[in-house]
């Protein structure tokens, strides 16, 4: 008998053996699939959002310079623009105007910005899709807010920013610089902070160091630090979710360990009979390897596939609560489907291999004992 035919007969026997205990094996497959699904969902989600943050924030300012006053972020005098512009290695310095506005009407926070280019014309506002949704606004409507002088400031909605860009713009309000200053009561000679671009990207750290020496009341925030922040935010989040899931995973491990290591009297008798009718120990082990492999590999495939659908095509509803926090403005966004070979291999090794191996130990013990003593 060739090897293939032999394995096929073993598989025939394995499936027949599994079908003799359908309820138990189906419930094991179901729980196993669920565990793989949850672990894979967390890993895929975290990986995808980290990738998204890294891809989107590549265009963030190379260095942001904030002025600090008594440990708090303070406004930046316009004179600093010129002082920084003279620093060797600095290609361009721009003052940024941005701040927060709490809208009591909907209990939401907006990020108000007055970009130097592609912003809004005086008297007009461009709003994020999140603001448009909670305030029921559309292009052409008048958006009136109470300014810091206590007076109402009305702006015509020039456009609603595309809903597809909500991940960066859901709560944005873009207005003209003069409107921004009037709305927040800022003098003409201050900015919120400064954005720097450097001539040679390899010199960013040196420029930041020189800058901190030249302006000791300022702190530079590098783009790489911004990117690291998001890497760390989502590593933390992944860790939190995995910690929450750890209980479920351990429950499954106990269940699987019990199922895999505690051979029932019936199973022991079955092994004894097989040995008595001439099966070799290796055949019994191969048969059990097929059994463990079939269940765990099917659960792995189904669990991973379902996790992919859940995260990339269903909007990860299980994590929506974790994402939501207390914010009123929640961005709607889609994650780009992606696969990471290392992640897939790790999940495979963590889910398929341990179960398959753990099934072998008791079987090996039973299969190496004298068949006569097992059957008694």
């Amino acid at each position, binding site marked *: 008998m060739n090897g293939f035919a032999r394995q096929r007969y073993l598989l025939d026997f394995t499936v027949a053996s599994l079908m003799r205990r359908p309820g138990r094996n189906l419930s094991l497959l179901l729980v196993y699939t669920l565990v793989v699904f949850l672990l894979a969902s967390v890993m895929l989600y975290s990986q995808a959002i980290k990738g998204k943050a890294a*891809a989107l924030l590549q265009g*963030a300012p190379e260095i942001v310079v904030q002025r600090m006053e008594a*440990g708090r972020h303070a406004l930046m005098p316009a004179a600093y623009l010129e002082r920084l512009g003279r620093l060797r290695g600095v290609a361009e310095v721009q003052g940024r105007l941005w701040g927060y506005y709490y809208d009591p009407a909907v209990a939401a926070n907006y990020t108000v910005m007055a970009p130097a280019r592609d912003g809004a014309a005086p008297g007009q506002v461009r709003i994020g899709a999140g603001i448009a949704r909670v305030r029921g606004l559309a292009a052409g409507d008048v958006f009136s807010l109470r300014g810091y002088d206590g007076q109402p400031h009305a702006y015509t909605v020039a456009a609603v920013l595309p809903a597809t860009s909500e991940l*960066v713009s859901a709560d944005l309000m873009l207005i003209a610089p003069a409107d921004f200053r009037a709305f927040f009561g800022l003098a003409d000679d201050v900015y919120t902070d400064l954005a720097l671009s450097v001539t040679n990207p390899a010199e960013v750290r040196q420029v930041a160091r020189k800058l901190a020496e030249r302006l000791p009341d300022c702190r530079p925030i590098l783009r790489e630090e911004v990117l690291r922040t998001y890497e*760390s935010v989502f590593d933390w989040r992944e860790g939190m979710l995995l910690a929450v899931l750890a209980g479920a995973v351990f429950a499954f491990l106990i269940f699987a360990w019990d199922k895999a290591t505690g051979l029932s009297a019936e199973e022991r008798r079955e092994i004894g009979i097989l040995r008595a009718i001439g099966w070799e120990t290796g055949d019994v082990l191969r048969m059990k390897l097929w059994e463990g492999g079939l269940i765990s590999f099917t659960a792995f495939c189904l669990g991973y596939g379902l996790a992919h659908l859940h995260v990339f095509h269903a909007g990860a509803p299980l994590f929506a609560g974790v994402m939501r926090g207390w914010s009123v403005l929640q961005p709607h966004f889609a994650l780009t489907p992606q696969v990471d070979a290392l992640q897939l291999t790790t999940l495979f090794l963590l889910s398929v291999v341990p179960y398959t191996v753990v099934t072998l130990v008791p079987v090996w013990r039973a299969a190496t004992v004298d068949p006569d003593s097992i059957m008694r």
Partner: protein
Amino acid sequence: MNRTLRKSTLAMWILAPALAILVGAVTDALISDAAPGEAEMRAEVAAWGLTDLALFTEARYTRHPSQADRHAAFQDHPGALEHFPSGALMPPPPHLREPTGP
């Protein structure tokens, strides 16, 4: 001729769709274009100098974690506990935990 379905064939009938689901997920990831709006968002980030994602808008240090100052979480008084659950989900930015810097 024996027309009874062999059990191993039955196993393949179960395993094949499961494997197809896995291969489908991997293929989908490999051939998928970037989610809609990605180019638009990159352009917005570059044009307006955005530094953070609009994921948590409830507080300034959760809306712009990369721009938060050292005292952000204690903004009301020095011993104040965190108000928002997002704080449990996001750590302080790594550069704030480094000993150097102003």
